[in-house]
């Protein structure tokens, strides 16, 4: 659930010019190298990583030095508290929480923010990441490219997807399946349905979580569950009347009575405003046609070749115009076709997304052979740099490979 498809990666950043340092620094390589069957068409993870390092260098990527021990806060702040049980956390002498790097994307962003270089710039990495699992291995190889600062987002997305496939080809892998989705199209549909802003953000936030999304749609269709309000009668009247001054005063009184700090947390204005808006939103309903549009859209699951037709049919059936969002996706597909990517092995799954608030557009996973685990996860995350403290938004797109999943694609770990 964290990051792209458990497919964000990173490594002991070794400069590409010194591959021996990289290899020496990767202890489990010995294990991989000796336990994997040599010969045949399967390479060991070690061979694969050196091929990937060459590939990244060819593509003009730079490989920053990224420490194994990272500050834990940026990971917990962006990926959420749930990550805590999946990372290895320790402390330094003064009590700062540190963790073994669980991926490379956030460290790559932090590296860029700490020592900004001219953008656009492509960073690459290859090394070990550490994640807690109930059983089995906790050290994995990850490699990948993060592309920062390109304003030609369509072309950058296409390069990212094409390079992900090229990286697999460089590893000698050709039988792939790609699943992709695009949050921008979902956002366009929610906007086209004319729902109030509060409901739009709620639905967009749930995108990628089919159950949560279905629950919201059910609530919008059938009305709210649960009983009346717990707000006392007089105040409730002010809330229903939308009397901001009265509500704010009442909330401020409750806050000071409870001794809540006046600053640093939720304010009386914020609480009062949301209480009033919420009462208004409670009466929002989706009519049958709107609900059908949402569920028809989320059910779209077609090959890359048929995506255009499916979306056009959807627009016609529901008299909706998806505008630039749809055109953007089609343009990407067209460019991928020109680049020679096998769109018949791509599946456009409209509901494919991830519940992390920094993903913003295209998202994809690439599977090899019969594996049920993606060998690559990637996507656009234009909001991440800002979350990590960048003063200006920096568009970003990237992908991560799990080289160990290429060794024996038939295996399901």
């Amino acid at each position: 659930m964290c990051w792209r498809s458990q497919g964000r990666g990173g490594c002991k950043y070794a400069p590409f010019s010194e591959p021996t340092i990289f290899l020496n620094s990767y202890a489990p390589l010995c294990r991989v190298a000796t336990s994997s069957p040599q010969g045949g068409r399967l390479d060991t993870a070690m061979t694969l990583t050196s091929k990937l390092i060459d590939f990244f260098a060819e593509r003009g990527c730079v490989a920053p030095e990224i420490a194994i021990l990272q500050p834990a806060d940026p990971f917990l702040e962006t990926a959420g508290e749930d990550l805590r049980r999946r990372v290895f956390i320790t402390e330094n002498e003064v009590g700062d929480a540190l963790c073994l790097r669980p991926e490379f994307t956030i460290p790559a962003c932090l590296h860029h923010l700490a020592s900004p270089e001219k953008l656009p710039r492509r960073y690459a990495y290859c090394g070990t990441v550490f994640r807690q699992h109930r059983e089995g291995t906790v050290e994995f190889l990850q490699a990948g490219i993060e592309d920062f600062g390109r304003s030609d987002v369509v072309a950058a997305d296409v390069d990212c997807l094409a390079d992900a496939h090229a990286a697999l080809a460089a590893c000698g892998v050709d039988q792939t399946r790609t699943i992709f989705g695009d949050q921008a199209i979902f956002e366009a549909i929610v906007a086209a349905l004319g729902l109030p802003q509060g409901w739009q953000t709620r639905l967009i936030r749930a995108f990628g979580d089919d159950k949560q999304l279905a629950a919201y749609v059910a609530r919008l269709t059938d009305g709210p569950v649960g009983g009346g309000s717990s707000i006392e009668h007089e105040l409730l009247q002010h809330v229903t009347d939308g009397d901001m001054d009265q509500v704010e005063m009442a909330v401020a009184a409750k806050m000071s009575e409870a001794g809540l700090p006046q600053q640093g947390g939720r304010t009386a204005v914020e609480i009062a405003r949301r209480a009033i808006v919420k009462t208004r939103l409670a009466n929002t309903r989706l009519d049958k046609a709107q609900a059908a549009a949402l569920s028809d859209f989320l059910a779209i699951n077609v090959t890359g070749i048929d995506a255009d037709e499916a979306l056009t049919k959807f627009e016609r059936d529901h008299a909706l115009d998806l505008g630039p969002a749809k055109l953007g996706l089609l343009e990407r597909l067209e460019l991928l076709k020109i680049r020679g990517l096998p769109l018949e092995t791509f599946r456009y799954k409209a509901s494919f997304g991830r519940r992390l608030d920094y993903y913003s557009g295209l998202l994809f996973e690439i599977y090899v052979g019969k594996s049920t685990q993606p060998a690559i996860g990637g996507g656009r995350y234009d909001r991440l740099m800002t979350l990590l403290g960048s003063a200006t938004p920096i568009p970003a797109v990237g992908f991560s490979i799990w080289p160990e999943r290429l060794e024996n694609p038939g295996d399901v770990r």
Partner: protein
Amino acid sequence: MTLVIGIPSKGRLKDKALGIFETAGLPITLSSDARNYRGRVEKHQRVEVALLSASEIAGELANGKIHLGITGEDLVRENIPHFEDKVELVAALGFGHADVVVGLPEAWIDVETMADLDDVAAEFRLRHGRRLRIATKYWRLTQGFFARHGIATYRIIESLGATEGAPAAGQADIIVDITSTGSTLKANQLKIPEDGVVLKSQANLVSSKTAVRDAGAYSLEAEIVSAVQNSL
């Protein structure tokens, strides 16, 4: 081989736990030396009773140091990672009732459900430059509960006592804590959202899955468990 049973070492939990065994026809005699923290079941010379704190009992059951024990379900679920693999809750004992709940400031009149809290948590960082903070000593239960409600955007502040004071002290925005009557929450002007009960806990007889038993200990344990179950 000896069968070791862990019993809470003090307070109401201890008295109630001793009462359970008494009712089951297995009265426990405690060592006359109060500092000894040991006891015996008269009927079964091969049973040893160890008086431990309720959270120690959960830990020792998980480690397999004791075979049976009486402790709170909240402690089992919170203190033992993947508790289903380590222990089995064999009987709910009908005392030690307490709920682990989400506590919000009463001033948050706009938050009545976990879905409301999800909205607030999602936009918290945008508004306040940081994630919503939850003070709790139940971080595992909290994570599981919030994940079930689809909420990931928050941070846990570990709290080792007086959790209910954290919002007023500015250490956290909300809390997850245990309450038996709700009076502490009320006194601190905190409220529980409609669907904000994380766990309804009570004292349980718990069996360790990791403790070693020979055939004798195994059948002795089965006998004791069914005596307790039948007496409830």
